[in-house]
């Protein structure tokens, strides 16, 4: 049984003219890292909200179909119970603070306090996550006074520290520089390796090519492509849905045109391998 199963889901926001999600079917296994890509307004965030249960429990509106977590209908859980199971980091980092804590340390503690964990465990977990994300310098700062990138990291830390089974992350690197982006991907990769399930909305296909197991491509509320990262990211159809292909895939497609190579690489390692084969004359 899949960990997350979406059956024929359609949804329209109360104020929406058209459906934001149309007949979505998706199965996500435990431990998978699934990336969701697509143009702005294609329904990526709404899909995340549906997996987290904010659709339809927070946002009302027309809802058809089902989302199952561990085989159980998501609407059978309370919002509080879902917070324990599914961590959700949303797009705008600026409003992702509790607004009642005066230091970053306390801010990160907020979720754990709500979980009612013993004090010592809370302190240990915070120390660990702070070290992992490299935000020691921010510990005593006021969460309001951070830059966008810093707030994004604090938002990430505040949810990761709760150690949910499933993580839904909506564009966590929009405010970060390339170095920060790499760091965040390293962390997401660590989380994945610890056996957790990750659903990530992200535009940076070069990084997705390296880390994601599966990729979902959305357009106008529908899933247009779904498959392994390699299948999807090497497919030139991607560009029709407003997604920029990974650099190496674009190179690969050119090579295919010129040399008639059989595979399209998506990562630097795959590209290197292919170029070696071309040089050796293995591919004509």
């Amino acid at each position, binding site marked *: 049984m899949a960990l997350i199963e979406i059956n024929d889901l359609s949804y329209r926001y109360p104020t929406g003219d058209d459906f934001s999600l149309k007949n979505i079917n998706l199965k996500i296994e435990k431990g998978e890292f699934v990336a969701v890509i697509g143009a702005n307004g294609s329904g990526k965030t709404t899909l995340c909200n549906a997996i*987290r249960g*904010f659709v339809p429990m*927070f946002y009302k509106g027309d809802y058809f179909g089902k989302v199952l977590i561990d085989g159980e209908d998501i609407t059978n859980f*309370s*919002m*509080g*119970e879902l*917070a*324990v199971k599914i*961590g*959700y*980091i*949303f797009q*705008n980092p600026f*409003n*992702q*603070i*509790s*607004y*009642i804590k*005066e230091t970053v340390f*306390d801010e990160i*503690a*907020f*979720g*754990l*306090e*709500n*979980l*009612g*964990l*013993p*004090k010592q465990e*809370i*302190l240990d977990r915070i120390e660990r996550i702070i070290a992992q994300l490299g935000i020691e310098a921010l510990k005593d700062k006021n969460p*309001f006074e951070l830059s966008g990138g810093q707030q994004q990291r604090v938002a990430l830390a*505040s*949810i990761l520290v*709760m150690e949910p089974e499933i993580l839904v992350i909506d564009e966590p690197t929009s405010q970060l520089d390339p170095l920060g982006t790499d760091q965040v991907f390293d962390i997401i990769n660590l989380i994945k390796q610890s056996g957790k399930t990750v659903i990530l909305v992200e535009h940076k296909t070069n990084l997705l090519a390296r880390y994601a197991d599966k990729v979902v491509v959305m357009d106008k509320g529908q899933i247009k492509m779904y498959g392994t990262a390699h299948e999807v990211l090497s497919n030139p159809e991607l560009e029709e849905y407003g997604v920029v292909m990974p650099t190496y895939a674009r190179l690969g497609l050119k090579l295919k045109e010129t040399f008639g190579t059989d595979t399209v690489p998506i990562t630097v390692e795959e590209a290197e391998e292919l170029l070696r084969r071309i040089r050796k004359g293995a591919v004509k």
Partner: protein
Amino acid sequence: MKENQKYLHKLYPYTKLVYLLVTSVIAIISPSWIYNYVLFAILCIFAATGSDFKPFIKSLCKSVLFLFIMIFVLQSLFRSGEHVLFKVWIFSVKLEGVLYAANLCGILLVIASSFILFFQTTDLQDLILAMEKSGISPTVSYVVLSTVQMIPQTKKRSDAIMNAQQARGVETQGNLMTRIKAYIPMLAPLILSSFTGMEERALTLEARAFSLNRKKTNIHEIHEHPYDRRIKTVLYVILALAVIGRLTIWH
């Protein structure tokens, strides 16, 4: 913050609430204005030794000085009485008015300075913590804390909007009328943007399991010391003596 803490900071928030109550009640029931000024002097001594005197006086001036001047001017000029102290043109300053103003200001002065001293020496987080300990719901404490935090936030946002409007050519400097006019294009975006933020804030609380029905932990602890209890007892005794005294012999 923590390094220049003096003894008033170390008291349990409730202990300080009790002194707030005691000084306010005494200020109101005291038979003569002289007692209130003595009480104010005592509060000043506490402020100087147990807190920071300069900011204390500063916020006191900011909050009540203008009011006092108004009270003195109006009461001494317009309160009817027989003992005219001196005359200025057609106005005469009467003794009754001056005394009445002194009395009124005495009460206000004691209450205002007690409150200022309380908030100067009490971290709001501690007060809320104490309240949570005695059983208020986390929702109430969230509402109080987030409201207080919202004030500097809103100020910051209004500055940003003001700058943006200025960049679009809205006149924000100049005489009073221009400044008032400049507020109108600022208010609408300010109010609207706080509404849109609301939804995400609610989601943040959900994401952090705020609505989970479990006993919450608090990583900060606050303890009531034995001396807090003793001080409270003394304060209650003073209050009782003052009330009983006022009813019997204190005129």
